[in-house]
Each structure stands twice: as structure tokens, then as C-alpha cells.
């Protein structure tokens, strides 16, 4: 893409104008507002708020559960994407469409549905309770909800990458005597790794900020099952605006960093594909 298009196609000014106006009005100015508000605290104040044990515990849970959920989603997501791309089976189209369900289902609905399922009296909870495996209201429940909402991200970024896989490379490896596992580990996985990482990072980013589906199934205990977004809400409800904005601002910086990582990964993916 080069500058020369500017001279030929019209509409650059108005469209860029609308875009910049909207991005400013909807994203930049509101988010800047958050920073301005938390700036009142000063860096020291923000640091102090964010490093209290309760906030740290919430960050640990949010990031820990999101990381575990993203890792599990990497495995499940790969499995689902692989099966959907490589095999034919009855009901495949339905499964393929259903993958997007967590994305299309309103989070509050997922939240109460998961709680209804995994509460000790729920369909699944009833089976798990005798095993001494409580899911609802524990970090396990939080992780489960995050797996649910993160799955489509991994599957949907992996699918195109798996489709683009060059069959000849695999065939060549097979001809050279590589076993199926070797091909998978040495040929397939390295090729789709950037896509896999992108998907996992997206799932992770979504999981860290997730609120609706988690609050219902989490026990919301400070230090134990309290996630960061809930902590922001709790701070607000205690009229602690400074604390809420401080935590919000930190979350925002982290979101931005994660997005930047995704963009870099996608750049890597692009180069990788061109390299092939």
C-alpha cells in the first residue's frame, strides 16, 4: 500500500475524520478520563492501592485462572479445530457453529447457566459433589467459566491456519519416514504455533476482564475467589472511586499490552506465512 492511492480514490478526509472522531469520542477520551482521574492519586497512590494484599490476591486469581483456562483451551481448542478441519463426521456443521456459542451467548446467561449446572444441586454438580470436587464458588468454577468463554477464540484463530497447512510438507515428512507424532510435533505444530498463540492470548485477554459469566459462579470471597473486575465493582460500591480507577487503569494498561502482543504475534504469523 502506497501513498499514490490518495490521489486517486476520494473520501480519505471524511472517512478518516469520522474514524478519528469516533475513536476519540468512544475510546480515547473516555479512557484518558480514567487516567486523569487516577492521576489524582499519583503513581505512589496507585501503586499502594494495587499492591494491597486483597488486590494482589485478586490479580493472582484473575491472571492465574485465566492462564490455566487459556492453557486448557490451547489443548481443547487445538483438538476441536483439528477435528473440524481434518475429519468428516455427522453433525460436524453443528459442532462448528456451536463453537461460537460462548461468544454469542450473553455473559449473564452463561453465568447463571453454568452456576445452575455446577451448583451442588445442579446436573453436573450433583455428580461431582460426592467425589469431593466442588466446582461452583471455587477457583475451579472461575477457571471453568473462563474456559467456556475462551474456547471460540482459540478454535477460530486456529482453523484458518490449519486449513492453510501445506499438505506436501506433511507428505514429504511422511515419505522421509517420520511418524505421525513426529510430523505433528515437528511440522504441524511449529507452523500453526503463531496462530495458536494468538488465539490463546486473545482468550487470555478476554478471560482477565470477564465479569458477567464469572460473578455468578465465583464465591466472590476476598483473597480467595474474588476476581479483579469484581473488586473494581466492590470498590465503587464502597464509594472508593480512587481505588476503583487505580485498579481500572492498571487493567487498562495490561489490556493494551496484551493487545500489542497479539498484534506483534499476528505480524509474526504474517511473516511466517509469507516465508512459506
Amino acid at each position, binding site marked *: 500500500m*502506497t501513498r499514490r*492511492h490518495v490521489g486517486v*480514490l476520494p*473520501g*480519505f478526509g*471524511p*472517512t*478518516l475524520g469520522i*474514524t478519528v472522531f*469516533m*475513536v476519540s469520542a*468512544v*475510546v*480515547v*477520551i*473516555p479512557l484518558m*478520563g*480514567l487516567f486523569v482521574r487516577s492521576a489524582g492519586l499519583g503513581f505512589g497512590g496507585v501503586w499502594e492501592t494495587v499492591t494491597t494484599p486483597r488486590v494482589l490476591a485478586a490479580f493472582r486469581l484473575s491472571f492465574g485462572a485465566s492462564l490455566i483456562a487459556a492453557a486448557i483451551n490451547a489443548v481443547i481448542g487445538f*483438538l476441536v479445530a483439528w*477435528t473440524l*478441519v481434518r*475429519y*468428516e*463426521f455427522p453433525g460436524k456443521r453443528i459442532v462448528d*457453529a456451536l*463453537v461460537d456459542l*460462548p*461468544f*454469542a*451467548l*450473553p455473559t*449473564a*446467561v452463561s453465568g*447463571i*447457566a453454568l452456576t*445452575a*449446572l455446577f451448583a451442588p444441586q445442579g*446436573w453436573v454438580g450433583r455428580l461431582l459433589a460426592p467425589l469431593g470436587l466442588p466446582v461452583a464458588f471455587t477457583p475451579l468454577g472461575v477457571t471453568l467459566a473462563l474456559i*467456556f468463554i475462551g474456547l471460540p477464540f482459540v478454535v*477460530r484463530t486456529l*482453523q*484458518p491456519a490449519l486449513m492453510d497447512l501445506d499438505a506436501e510438507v506433511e*507428505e514429504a515428512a*511422511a515419505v522421509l519416514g517420520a511418524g*505421525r507424532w513426529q510430523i505433528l510435533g515437528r511440522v504441524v505444530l511449529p507452523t500453526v504455533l503463531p496462530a495458536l498463540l494468538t488465539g490463546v492470548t*486473545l482468550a487470555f*485477554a478476554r478471560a482477565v*476482564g*470477564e*465479569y*458477567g459469566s464469572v460473578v455468578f459462579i465465583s464465591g466472590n470471597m476476598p483473597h480467595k475467589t474474588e476476581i479483579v473486575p469484581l473488586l*473494581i*465493582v466492590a470498590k*465503587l460500591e464502597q464509594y472508593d*472511586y480512587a481505588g476503583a480507577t487505580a485498579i*481500572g487503569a492498571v*487493567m487498562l494498561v495490561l*489490556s493494551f499490552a496484551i*493487545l500489542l502482543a497479539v*498484534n506483534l504475534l499476528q505480524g509474526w504469523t504474517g511473516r511466517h506465512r509469507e516465508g512459506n
Partner: protein
Amino acid sequence: MAGAGGGHRAAPRPRSGMSEPAPVRRLLIAATLVVAGCVLVLPLASVFAEALRGGLGAYLASFRDPEALAAIRLTLLVAAIAVPVNVLFGLSAAWAIAKFSFPGKRLLITLIDLPYAVSPVVSGLVYIMIYGANGVFGPWLAAHDLQVIFAVPGIVLATIFVTFPFVARELIPLMEEQGTEQEQAAMTLGASGWQTFRRVTLPNVRWALLYGVILCNARAMGEFGAVSVVSGHIRGKTATMPLQVEILYNEYNHVAAFAVASLLAMLALVTLVAKAVVERRAGAAAAQITTTEVETEPQRREAP
């Protein structure tokens, strides 16, 4: 993001000779079906099971409640504003970003993406900090007797924020991929900018646009976290459907709560079906563009 992942064309036929042994294959397929069943179908089924627990009569009665109807109306209104705004924005952004090059483009894209990664709670909080009574514009709004937070405008704004990237991010990669040759050809043949956009660009991206609109709409109607922070939870006035679910749930009215939830779940299912249809049509269209369109389009375009 499912949307940002882009390009979900219909899967090609599996390549022959390059597959796992049958037992492994069957095992993997079974595992996928189990995942789909446990992780995806079960929560959905439980929504409908709970909703119908009191029988069909009680289920249908839930929708005659004026408050439930008000929630449905409000949700439709919010989507009816947020989606067109995002379509307008998405088209502008995609045109500016995909068809031209300018400094700061990557930054702009990252900023458009930002609402994907921002926690819904933070987005709600942000609007309170700006438009709330103690917010930056709070005194000005109060002086002019305008209410944003805890009223419909706040809900609309929060919804626009969370759905902001959907349309733009569907269109940008596609329009970048398509380049500017077709548009330039149309322009040299004397079409105006608007004509070029309507006759050339729009048909080329219509499936991606529709896809973005479907996702945007699903999220606009289903958003809970952000809207929950900026809505006053006033029954019958500022409660959207997801908030109404929570209100009913908290009033021990589980049948009604799950009934409204089931409506949202049905919306999700409709979204999935619409999406699958769009994907198939888009796949077919993509195949066509490369063959026929290149030959026929220029002739059609000469007419005006």
C-alpha cells in the same frame, strides 16, 4: 476474538492419505463431540430446561409481564442505535485504513481493538467517570438538564463501546486484501466516489459487513457487565434483557429469569445460524469474484 480471527471459510475436504489411523481419528472426533456436548450444549440446554420447569404456560406468561416487555423494547432500541452507528463507523474506518496509507495507522487499529480487551466493568466505570454526577462532564450535563448515566444514553454509549471493533475489524482485513484496483478502475471509468463505493466496494464486502453486523448485534443485545455499571437497574425503565434476567433471578422468579435468558439464548442460536449461512454465501461469493466478477463488473460499471 472470533471476529478478529477473520476468514472462516467453509472447510475444504480433508486431504487424502494424510491422516491418523482410524481408531485415533474416531477417538479425536469423540473427544470433540464430548467437548461440544459438555462445554457448549449443556449450559444451553440447562437454560431451556430451567425456563420450562414450570410448564409452557408459566414460560409464556413470563413474556406478558410489562417489565419484561419493556426490557425487550429497550434492548431492541439500544441495538437499533448501536449497530447502525458501528456500521457507519466500521465502513468509514475500513475505507480510510484499508484504502489509504498514513502514519499512525497501526496505532489507530490498536485503539479500535482496545474495547475487545478492556474489561466490561472498566468500560462502564469509564463512562461513570466521564458522564456521572461527579464525572468530568457531570456538572455541565446537570446544568443543561441532560442525563446520560443511569438513563438510555449511557446504556447506548456503553454498548457502542463494547461493540466498537466488531464491524470495523471484519471489514479492514478483507478490504486490505482486496486492494484498490477495482475502485481505481471504476474511478478512471468516470464513476463518482460514492458510486464507486456503492457499486464496487460494498458488494465486495457485503458478506463480511453482514457478518460483522450479526456479531455486533449479538453482543449489543447481550452485554451485561458494562451496561450493569451504567444502568440504574430501574425496572421497566433502564433494565435491558440481560439486566432483567439478573433482576428476576434475584426476585426468586427463576422461571421468568430463565425465560428471558432463553430468549437471549435463542438470539444466540439465530446468530449462529445466520453466521453459518453468511459464511457459506461468502465462501461461494469469494469463489465467484475471482472468476466471473472480474469480467462482468467493468461492463456494468460503464453504464452510468
